[in-house]
């Protein structure tokens, strides 16, 4: 019933896949046993530990997280120590069990498919990781836009991925020689930023501002539903006007293949990551050294105090939404040379940036960047190290989602989030 099939980054991955000699023999049994061991003990640790802490009238706020990690990493051994001694939990209790948990996962993976390149070839793993970092920088930039919106307006924009999609299309129709105006890529980037900024500002001014003026009942739900409606509207407008054909442009600059040591980096990704870093530097300069940027940060810290010193929080809301949309649009413009661009690419980007901001901590800029890179690595390792290609491409997003669900349940503040 879908109007068009999901297009995933298939072309990007296939050249790696051809290089991997897949053995036909699988031994899923032991791997699944190890996984089950990790999951079951993690679950037991997560459920029982906080109860024991609460029963002994101790601080149980960290017990769920620490219990889960202890159970997953060292199984009953550490759990029994935790349960009998109930020590005060600080970060040191996390180091060894998290390392062993990662080791167990790697062991499961290695027994699942002993001839996989990810187990046998270190070079392959490093090249997947570096690819993941490159694309993860862009994920980080998209998520920074979302986290900026969250820290100023206090809402999550469900239309964020659609701004990313629009930015890509704006760049495509500016740059492309055959379909578009055939202008220089830099103009394409600027156009993408401008268009998404204007749409974001207009949307915030007309539809979200009434919420902050108190003209709307139940504002939290209003914001979620409204941005969801915007996503719906933007995605299908793009489909109706621009069509479902995949679009792609050549790499912005002709760099040739970039080889560092034993690994080769695709130039389009290197360019995209470079653009991402440039955007990041400009954003940091803007936030730290300009009046508007300082005003934005002031509003994110304390709305009333900012208003007292003469900053209009309503205008800052509009600016933040526009900026967030622009960051998404710019990343879209940078990635249109890497991925095949279709109108529903935004839905994927949306969910991915939710994963990133929840992992990094809602409202934290460094958290969003680091979360983006982590998700980039996990996705590219997940797809590169999975023996069955088509299944791996489908599960690529599932890995991120699982991290997301686990983080939401165990530590909703994320890695760098402010305490709720």
């Amino acid at each position, binding site marked *: *019933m*879908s*109007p068009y*099939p999901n297009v995933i980054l298939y072309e990007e991955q296939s050249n790696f896949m051809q290089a991997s000699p897949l053995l036909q023999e699988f031994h899923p049994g032991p791997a699944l046993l190890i996984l089950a061991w990790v999951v079951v003990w993690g679950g037991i640790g997560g459920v029982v530990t906080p109860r024991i802490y609460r029963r002994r009238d101790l601080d149980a706020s960290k017990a769920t997280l620490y219990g889960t990690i202890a159970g997953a990493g060292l199984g009953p051994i550490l759990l029994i120590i935790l349960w009998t001694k109930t020590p005060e939990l600080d970060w040191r209790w996390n180091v060894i069990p998290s390392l062993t948990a990662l080791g167990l996962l790697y062991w499961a993976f290695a027994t699942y498919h002993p001839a996989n390149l990810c187990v046998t070839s270190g070079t392959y793993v490093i090249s997947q990781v570096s690819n993941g970092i490159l694309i993860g920088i862009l994920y980080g930039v998209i998520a920074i836009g979302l986290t900026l919106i969250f820290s100023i307006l206090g*809402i*999550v924009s*469900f239309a964020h991925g659609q701004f990313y999609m629009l930015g890509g299309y704006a760049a495509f129709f500016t740059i492309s020689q055959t379909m578009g105006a055939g202008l220089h890529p830099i103009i394409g980037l600027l156009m993408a930023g401008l268009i998404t900024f204007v749409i974001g500002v207009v949307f915030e001014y007309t*539809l979200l501002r*009434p919420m902050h003026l108190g003209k*709307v*009942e*139940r504002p*939290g*739900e*209003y914001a*979620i*539903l*409204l941005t*969801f*409606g*915007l*996503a*719906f*509207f*933007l995605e*299908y*407008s793009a*489909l*109706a006007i621009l069509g479902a054909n995949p679009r792609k442009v050549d790499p912005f600059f002709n760099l040739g293949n970039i080889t560092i040591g034993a690994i080769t980096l695709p130039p389009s990704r290197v360019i995209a990551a470079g653009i991402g870093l440039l955007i990041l530097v400009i954003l940091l300069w803007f936030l730290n050294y300009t009046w508007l940027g300082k005003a934005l940060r002031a509003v994110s810290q304390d709305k009333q105090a900012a208003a007292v010193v003469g900053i209009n929080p309503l205008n800052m809301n509009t600016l933040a939404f526009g900026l967030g949309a622009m960051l998404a649009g710019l990343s879209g413009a940078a990635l249109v040379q890497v991925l095949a661009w279709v109108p529903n690419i935004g*839905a994927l980007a949306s*969910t991915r940036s*939710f*994963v990133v901001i*929840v992992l990094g901590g809602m409202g934290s800029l460094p958290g969003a960047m680091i979360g983006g890179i982590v998700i980039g690595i996990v996705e590219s390792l997940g797809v590169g190290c999975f023996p069955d290609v*088509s*299944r791996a491409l*489908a*599960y690529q*997003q*599932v890995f991120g*989602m*699982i991290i*997301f*669900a686990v983080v*939401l*349940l165990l530590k*909703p503040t994320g890695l760098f989030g402010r305490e709720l």
Partner: protein
Amino acid sequence: MMRTVIAWALGIIAVVFLALIPFVYDVFPSFPPGLVNEYTLHVLIVGFYFAMLASSWSLLMGYGGQFSFAHLAFAGIGAYTTGLMGRYLGTHALTGIIAGTLMAGLFGLVIGMLVLRLRKTYLALFTIAFAEIFRLVISAEKDFTEGPNGLPVEPLFPNGLNIAGYHFDKVDKLPPYFIMLALLLISLALMSWLAASRFGLFLRAIREDEEAAAALGVDVVRYKVLVFVITSMVAGLAGAVRAHYVTVITPNDMIILWMSLVITMSVLGGIESLIASAIGGIVVFVLLEYLRTNFLTTSVMAVVLTVILAPTLYYLSRYAARRWFNSPLKGRTRTFAIIAAAVVALVIGIAVREPVTTGLSYAYYDMTGSLFPETIDMSAWRLVFFGIVLMLTLRFYQNGLLYPVMQYYFRPGSLKETVAKREAAAAIAETEAGS
């Protein structure tokens, strides 16, 4: 009260009408095509499915304030449970439907317990993640679920059905039509009863202020989980029955688009009323199907011109009234101005549709080198239309389009009561602040 009688009569007539439609089709097999035929019945059946989803979502969201984007995933759980059981265990459709409903309830229980701690935004994010995981896993496990190719499911009555000496074939639309209609009415009745009972009261209390409700003795945990379970069971039931009706299910039935449409249905009808959202579901789905056909570019142009011109004319007349007659538009004059603007815009739109389309198509040809299409494919534009309608409804009619009308008829005087109560509360607050 006269108004209430009219309202009840209209409601009963609507249900009787829905119950009688198929007989028209059955008695006159050669009825003029396009009026009542197999396709109409099909649209209505799927419309009932969406009505069930929309009304249960409004119980979850409008009453309980629990944000869930996983409603389609629960319907999918019901559908895939019965589909997979029928395929691998060879169970009967009825067993499968019951199992699917229970399975959806079980998932609702687990998810409801997991997300207890999460507040609105986080809950929305978590449910969207769950829905996506479920859909992706179903499409990835091709060997087991057939993935995007679709899992074939047995029809509701594989051997046909004999009632009162009349034989219905397994592809006949009448039995599924009545089953869907009956399920919709039963689930609506059950959920309305729940919403009107203490359960509904507690839910609304939790929605307004969780801490306050807990302080007053409401078992927050129990009711939050319970509402998740009940609504996901309704969704699972709808999904399972629909699976047996369309006889093939794919992961694409669960993409975000359908969730957006369920939200649209619920919001357009009225998010705080189960019956309004159900009617919204049927109406929106029928509209969706109706708008699917291709339209002539010229007629679309007429509509677009009207929509652009009408507000322009109205604002112009408002400006003119203020500028030259020195009086703002209000009351009857305002109504007149709105109607006149709409009519004049429509006339102008129809009059100039041909030359405007021709001019645009020349410009289009100059720019792209290809011809302007004579008909417009509406399959994506109708969704754009509903996106705009959803946003505007949320902004300007938060109670939905249908619910205020229903309230006007079913609860005459409630508006006055509310206003009186609000004023009394404001007066009390003022005296307290003064003292």
